[in-house]
């Protein structure tokens, strides 16, 4: 399956995770890389549902597509909620700060960007597009 389209609701996080796991397996990613890719996509998909669709009172779809070539796996997550560029978000506060006093939040996008080799965002014709790219392990 190269494309999955699901409603933009929290119940769709699981089928999206399953799609990412399948793509990671096909690309031959190591366990750690596959986990981090799932985390990256899950964080952005969660934000789209909670802040893109729910907060704006809109409904819409989440669409995820995969593109696999000999060197890398790229996943594209697309939605039609209001424009939101994760890369423009401020980095989380000091990560050594006590859990007692630090602000909650900002960690999802940090984990996304940290978890993949390349993360890109674009807004095209009413669609947010988030691209997650990871290099495949070198062929033996």
């Amino acid at each position: 399956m190269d494309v999955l389209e699901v409603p933009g609701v929290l119940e769709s996080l699981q089928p999206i995770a399953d799609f990412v796991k399948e793509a990671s397996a096909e690309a031959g990613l190591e366990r750690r890389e596959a986990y981090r890719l799932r985390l990256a996509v899950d964080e952005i998909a969660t934000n789209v549902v909670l802040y893109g669709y729910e907060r704006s009172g809109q409904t819409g779809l989440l669409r995820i597509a995969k593109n696999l070539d000999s060197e890398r796996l790229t996943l594209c997550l697309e939605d039609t909620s209001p424009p939101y560029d994760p890369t423009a978000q401020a980095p989380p506060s000091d990560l050594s700060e006590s859990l007692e006093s630090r602000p909650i939040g900002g960690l999802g996008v940090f984990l996304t960007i940290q978890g993949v080799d390349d993360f890109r965002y674009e807004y095209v014709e009413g669609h947010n597009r988030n691209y997650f790219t990871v290099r495949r392990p070198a062929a033996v």
Partner: protein
Amino acid sequence: MHIELRDVGDVRVVALTGDLDGKSAPAAQEQLLPLIPPSGSVLLDLSGVDYMSSAGLRMMLLVYRHAQSVSSRIALVGLSEDIQDTMSATGFLDFFVLSDSVDAGVQALAAP
């Protein structure tokens, strides 16, 4: 998300099973907070949790704060390598006592 509870001596062992994501973490958090015994000890067994997103971290942060506010001691056991990675990258790991086994965690928390 499934939550199982047992008391071992004076230590409450709370075992979570399932993924902690944006869907499950808020519900797990709601169930978990009242289970933290005031002025007591709780060992959070995460060996049944294979996945934790930032929503799970948020739950951990609120559990930590709640435990602090009711003077409870808390320790973790059964963290997968991947979840340890996430907690380490976000500076969470330093604030929790980690145990290698439930028995070790119970002993660590029971010690005066």
